[in-house]
């Protein structure tokens, strides 16, 4: 089966800093892939390139067979990629429902249908009772759920979660992991998570990709990756600090 997402030697440079150096990876439909690496490894840059906010200086990115290397973000969303943001970005002045409606309007032009779908997704993500609250007043955990609901409203084939667990309490983190599992199992969405919390990423992912200083240094099942020499070295010292 053809991979859903395919990066071929993607390279992205900012002046003298090479954020992504010839990164090649694939994501198969139905996988949950974890993308990890020390701070500054280039994970968010990779996400930005995949979703069209930046364009690689070299290499190609293909989604579902279509070359999206130089495509704008809105078009990539239309093709079926949705993302959440490292620093949560809800539409603060709108209600939670309206936030998700904006996402749903991507796939339907009928307001009633969009609102119904939005309501259902808010229930799914556990925000059922908060539909009419202004997004800016929600807690951080709820805002993250809102972002996920809004992203899901665009009916993505691939969902990219950028540090969705950061800033959450242990209880909130467990709930978030359950949500990710449900999205994968019930909505049949392929997922790629960027995470720092090892206890979250390892059990969740079918496969883990490790970046260090812009280079992919490992790619395989979690059990293999944690034992990989290079990975251990990259995390030396940080491994003890990870929760």
């Amino acid at each position, binding site marked *: 089966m053809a991979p859903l997402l395919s990066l071929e030697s993607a390279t992205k440079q900012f002046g003298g800093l090479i954020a992504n150096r010839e990164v090649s990876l694939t994501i198969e439909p139905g996988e949950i892939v974890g993308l990890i690496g020390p701070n500054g490894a280039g994970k968010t840059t990779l996400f930005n390139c995949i*979703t*069209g*906010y930046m364009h690689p200086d070299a290499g190609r990115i293909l989604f579902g067979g279509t070359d999206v290397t130089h495509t*704008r*973000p*809105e078009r990539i*969303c*239309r093709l079926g990629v*949705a*993302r959440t*943001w490292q620093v949560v*970005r*809800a*539409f*603060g*002045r*709108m*209600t939670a429902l*309206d936030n998700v*409606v*904006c*996402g749903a*309007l*991507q796939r339907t*032009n009928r*307001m009633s249908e*969009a609102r119904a779908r939005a309501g259902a997704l808010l229930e799914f993500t556990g925000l059922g009772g908060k539909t*009419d*609250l*202004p997004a800016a007043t929600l807690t951080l955990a709820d805002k993250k759920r809102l972002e996920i609901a*809004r*992203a899901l*409203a*665009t009916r993505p084939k691939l969902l990219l979660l950028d540090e969705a667990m950061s800033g959450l309490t242990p209880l909130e983190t467990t709930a978030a992991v359950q949500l990710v599992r449900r999205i994968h199992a019930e909505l049949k969405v392929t997922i790629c998570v960027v995470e720092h919390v090892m206890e979250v990423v390892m059990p969740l992912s079918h496969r883990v990709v490790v970046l260090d200083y812009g280079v992919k240094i490992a790619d395989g099942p979690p059990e293999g990756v944690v034992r990989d020499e290079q990975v251990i070295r990259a995390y030396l010292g940080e491994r003890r600090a990870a929760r």
Partner: protein
Amino acid sequence: MSRIALVIGAIAAIVYPIPLQLQGYTYYQTVGFLVLLNAMLGIGWNVVGGWAGQFDFGPQVFFAVGAYTAALLFVKLGVGAWLGLVAAVVVAFLICAVLTYPLTRLRGHYFAIATVAIWMIAQPIGATWEFIGGSQGLFIPVKPRGGVVASALSLQFSGPTKALGYYYASLVLFAITLALMALVERSKLGYYFRAIRDDQEAAEGIGIDSRLYKVLARSITAAVFAAGGVLYAFWALSVFPEQALELNWSTLPIMATVVGGIGRLWGPVLGAIILIPIAQIMSTTLGTGPLAGRGVDLIVYGLIIVLIAAFRPTGLLSLPWARWFRLRRSATA
């Protein structure tokens, strides 16, 4: 807008000029005309400024485009005012769309200066282009038609019911604009505009083509301003570049919108009802008599604006007593 307030307001607006007519106070009908015109422009500006959140200081250009288009069609081809209005709206929409699309790569204040730039370029064009009369402008010859219906259809009122006629014409246009913008607000367009305002990049991430929708927002505003320009042209019976392109045609509606509450559909209405009569009253009291020509009325006006801005920055519609006038789903503002 709560239903009761809406009905009361509508009745008040319809009935307002009648006692004035009977007493012969046509000046106040004209004040009403100006309130409605500026409220209409404010509602139009709210689309690009309040909903889409773009700094746009150039819609007066499309006010002039509307005025000139309708005036030209009438003077050169004898096209009636209302048909001319439709044409003017379409022309303004298209010109704005074409001009704005390349500008969408400019963000924030750079975009604002670009809108001013178009205005600055339009000024000498207006003053020197002979086809539209240059600095001599265009005159709309008055052809008074007898009868109410004929006058209304040609948008030319004269005689003792002149101000009355224009008042009702502006009321009709205002009502149409309000209704249309209310539809826009609840539509996909409205949602997308507000998404772009709140976070443009996040909006793009859920599939919103920010460039397209910025162009649409601005062009809708342009269309409303063009309609206002047509109304103005047939009221003033002349179109001069300095008058039609005056910055006041955008600053006054913007001020009305900010005073009333930016982003709220009825904001500009409240703002216009407050600001314009104040300006008029002051110019007739403080601006005449011993202090005439000394700008005292404008000093007070400026002071009022400064005080409102300093002490009620979120606009007057956010005051508790104004809750009767607010949309029920207030979080969509």
